[in-house]
């Protein structure tokens, strides 16, 4: 990153926001094409059932209906949902586009109707008669593992999707050496991502040109194009995916969904454009869920607080089918199980379980929040056991500064960090000592106050291709147009991250222009070179670096050309104020536009220089990056009602160098709120029959602005040595760091009631019951 900056690191307001705020942005549902048809999907009300027959005759003759297709009609026409994750000895669980013989979760598609308007399509769904033979649903992942459980797939002897192990260090010795071992079961409940914009697809096929265009609300337009071409068995160059504005994804749109392939198929079959917009209830039932792990943790430690070893057993509920990364997500928990501590030995054993539920997959943090949660809870359990201050215990177990790059026993290498510095800042900002004094005072008054800490590290900038299922590089093309305006084309297709602003800052900085001179184009596979997408906090740390490299290539070319025109050594040229001039003889100067014009008019080019100004880079990161931070929060629990109020939140995050602090702060805020959702409110609940009973926003509680106190954010800067910008990534930090801080605060508050641990979400009834039990015990 350049040393002196004019725009980089500055809190520029987002270029995206005016159109979003004014309602001028275009989402999938805003796309209207002549002759547009509409699709609606009939979904299974059963979690597990055999389909005996489907009668579509009434639906077919309903007014406006053009086509009705069942799973049986589509057999062999469209490939199954792709899964990019490969784990040794993993059982297959491919999801057909529509179920043809057996349904395996509530919400699985059984038939599709296409009609001339949306209401006709929806109404015709009700005319389809399906004869189901209900089967015993497999809902509880632990019961699913019991002998005699119903098995989801014929031919499999059980519901185990895979077993995965990762061990580093001498675990036996660690547990032998330990003065104490604490065991705890931690439930990381299933969550529903609830992006503000549900999914949606518009597909248009032009038979003459043999071109299928798919507009989809996705995080991965290019990967989607490749997969859709394969599922529909058409050449990849005859498919174009366009991602218009995307109203949030959080990982739930990092996928290839049945509806995307189905709509493409319908458009090709009918020769008509077809639209499908997911309803909220469909979204809750049929867009990937997150988390859902039962983690049994054993932590071995010495009396002085040194952590010696961790033994982790994970039951990961995968749902009924694999989506793109379903089996992979829990393994990230194993990779990150060391947290930001020097733990000599760690063993993680994961059992992936198939159940009659929607698939789990990436959700903001994706396997890492689970790891951080279990490590941070374990640290607090040890601190409570030893009556140590949780801050001191953490500090004791941090790797030393000279240990970096630090290799964990889980086989990864933390790039750079200064954990004590972020912890110190968080303690200082929160006035931690005083908080503890106030807590003691409050407890004397009979108030229930808890202070929670978390120091976290996460794995970002996904990632080196060697460690990724489908490539971990990113592309960027920079085009300087003849008028001197810049277009940056990025393969990292953003959906709220603000790359249109941060990449423009980068372009303006490097080329000495204004951010408004730089336009960022993304999300169209026919315009943007192949890319991987935005997820895993990689937008800036991989996509941004690719943009940086292309910008530098063009800067070099412009310098060579300007040097030639000015008779100056290119290395002595400065790009600033829309000019290119000599550092030592500022009169030797050309307007930026003049040099660009020279590149295009091509009349006075140096020998061997090609005309034009266009550069593409594919940046391959050599490692992940590992942002970190320290969060401190205070909760107070109403002893009468069990209501948990968050009253103070301090977050110190270190994501390396920062392109735009406003964007970073926005990411941190959003992440903390989402973590608050998991800690306090959210839980996807399936009943014993596999019915999703939190299937509406009436029943699935997400946080509101009024739940949140003012969030105080601080930052330390430890640049990453992995990339030339020194950036790390911050998109998921909040959900990773904040969930354990909140959980630790609640456990701390309840300590006087003899409570050691309570599982999320901290609903009033759960907390109240524990307090009642604790009070009785105390009496």
């Amino acid at each position, binding site marked *: 990153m350049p040393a002196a900056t004019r725009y980089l690191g500055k809190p520029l307001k987002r270029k995206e926001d005016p159109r979003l705020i004014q309602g001028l942005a275009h989402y999938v549902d805003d796309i209207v094409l002549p002759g547009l048809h509409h699709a609606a999907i009939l979904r299974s*009300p059963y979690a597990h059932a055999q389909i005996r027959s489907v009668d579509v005759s009434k639906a077919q003759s309903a007014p406006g209906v053009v086509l009705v297709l069942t799973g049986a009609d589509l057999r062999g026409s469209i490939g199954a949902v792709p899964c990019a994750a490969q784990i040794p000895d993993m059982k297959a669980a491919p999801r057909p586009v529509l179920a043809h013989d057996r349904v395996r979760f509530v919400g699985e598609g059984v038939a599709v109707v296409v009609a001339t308007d949306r209401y006709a399509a929806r109404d015709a769904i*009700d005319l389809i008669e399906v004869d189901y033979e209900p089967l015993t649903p497999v809902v509880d992942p632990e019961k699913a593992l019991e002998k005699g459980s119903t098995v989801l797939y014929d031919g499999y002897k059980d519901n185990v999707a895979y077993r995965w192990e990762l061990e580093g260090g001498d675990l036996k010795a660690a547990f032998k050496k330990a003065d104490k071992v604490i065991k705890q079961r931690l439930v990381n409940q299933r969550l529903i991502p609830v992006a503000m914009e549900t999914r949606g697809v518009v597909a248009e096929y032009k038979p003459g040109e043999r071109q299928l265009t798919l507009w989809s609300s996705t995080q991965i337009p290019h990967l989607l194009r490749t997969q859709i071409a394969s599922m529909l068995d058409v050449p990849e160059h005859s498919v174009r995916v366009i991602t218009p504005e995307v109203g949030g994804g959080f990982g739930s749109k990092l996928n290839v969904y049945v509806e995307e392939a189905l709509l493409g198929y319908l458009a090709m079959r009918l020769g008509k454009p077809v639209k499908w917009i997911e309803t909220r209830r469909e979204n*809750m*039932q049929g867009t990937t869920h997150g988390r859902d792990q039962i983690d049994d943790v054993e932590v071995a430690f010495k009396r002085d607080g040194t952590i010696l070893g961790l033994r982790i057993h994970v039951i990961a509920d995968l749902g009924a089918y694999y989506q793109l990364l379903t089996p992979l997500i829990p393994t990230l928990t194993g990779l990150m199980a060391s947290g930001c501590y020097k733990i000599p030995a760690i063993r993680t054993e994961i059992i992936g379980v198939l159940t009659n539920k929607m698939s789990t997959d990436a959700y903001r943090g994706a396997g890492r929040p689970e790891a951080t949660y279990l490590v941070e809870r374990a640290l607090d359990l040890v601190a409570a056991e030893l009556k140590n201050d949780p801050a001191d215990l953490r500090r004791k177990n941090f790797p030393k500064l000279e240990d970096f790059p630090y290799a964990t026993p889980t086989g990864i290498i933390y790039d750079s960090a200064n954990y004590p510095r972020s912890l110190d800042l968080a303690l200082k900002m929160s006035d931690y000592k005083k908080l503890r004094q106030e807590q003691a005072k409050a407890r004397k008054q009979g108030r229930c106050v808890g202070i929670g800490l978390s120091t976290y590290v996460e794995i970002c900038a996904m990632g080196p291709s060697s460690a990724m299922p489908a490539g971990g590089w990113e592309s960027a093309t920079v085009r300087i147009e003849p008028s001197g305006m810049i277009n940056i084309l990025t393969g990292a297709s953003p959906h709220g991250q603000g790359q249109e602003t941060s990449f423009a800052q980068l372009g303006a900085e490097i080329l000495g222009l204004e951010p408004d001179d730089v336009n960022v184009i993304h999300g169209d596979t026919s315009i943007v070179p192949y890319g991987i997408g935005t997820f895993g906090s990689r937008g800036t740390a991989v996509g941004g670096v690719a943009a940086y490299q292309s910008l530098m290539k063009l800067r070099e070319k412009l310098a060579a050309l300007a040097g030639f025109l000015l008779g100056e050594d290119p290395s002595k040229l400065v790009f600033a104020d829309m000019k290119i001039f000599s550092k030592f003889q500022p009169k030797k100067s050309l307007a930026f536009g003049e040099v660009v014009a020279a590149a295009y008019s091509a009349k006075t080019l140096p020998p061997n220089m090609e005309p034009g100004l266009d550069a593409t880079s594919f940046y391959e990161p050599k490692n992940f990056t590992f942002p970190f931070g320290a969060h401190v929060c205070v909760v107070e629990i109403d002893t009468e009602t069990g209501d948990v109020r968050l009253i103070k939140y301090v977050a110190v995050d270190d994501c390396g160098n920062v392109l735009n602090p406003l964007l970073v702060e926005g990411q941190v805020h959003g992440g903390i709120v989402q973590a608050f959702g998991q800690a306090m409110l959210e839980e996807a609940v399936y*009943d014993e029959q596999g*019915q999703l*009973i939190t*299937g*509406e926003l009436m*029943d699935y509680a997400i946080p509101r602005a009024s739940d949140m106190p003012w969030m105080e954010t601080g930052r330390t800067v430890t640049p990453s040595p992995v990339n030339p910008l020194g950036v790390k990534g911050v998109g998921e930090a909040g959900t990773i760091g904040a969930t354990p801080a909140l959980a630790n605060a609640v456990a701390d508050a309840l300590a006087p009631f003899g409570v050691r641990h309570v599982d999320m979400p901290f609903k009033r009834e759960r907390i109240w019951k524990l307090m009642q039990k604790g009070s009785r015990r105390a009496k």
Partner: protein
Amino acid sequence: MKLSGQYSLPAPPAKVWALLTDPGRLAKLLPGCERLDPEGPDRFKAAVKFGIAAISGKYAGTLEFFEKKPPRSMRMRLSGKGLPGFVDGTGQVELAEKGGQTELRYSGEAQVGGMVAAVGQRMIEGAARKIVDEFFAAAAEELKKE
């Protein structure tokens, strides 16, 4: 969903039994019941209108009596489906004489699925209880008339 309870009905068990097994009278007394047509011995085709909050609709299905021990006890099986979802349940009714009147105990368990489960789960039990209450209140009235 599980449901159980008991009622006192102002008639001896034989009369209560006769009422409970008469499809014509049952249809009249059961809230929302539009039809209850015999389909075989102790098996009826039913059409019922039922709603919870905004999720209302018609359900079509069957009602079956079995293990009949007149006038003491019987079991029943109910299955129906409609636009808002499906219901599958079994129940048991026991009648005991008490001073010329009948003490009726019932218990049942039902599985509910579809939209009605996704949206109205928390209200289903209350709604079902209300229907049962209404039914027995109407049955008591009917028995008084005899």
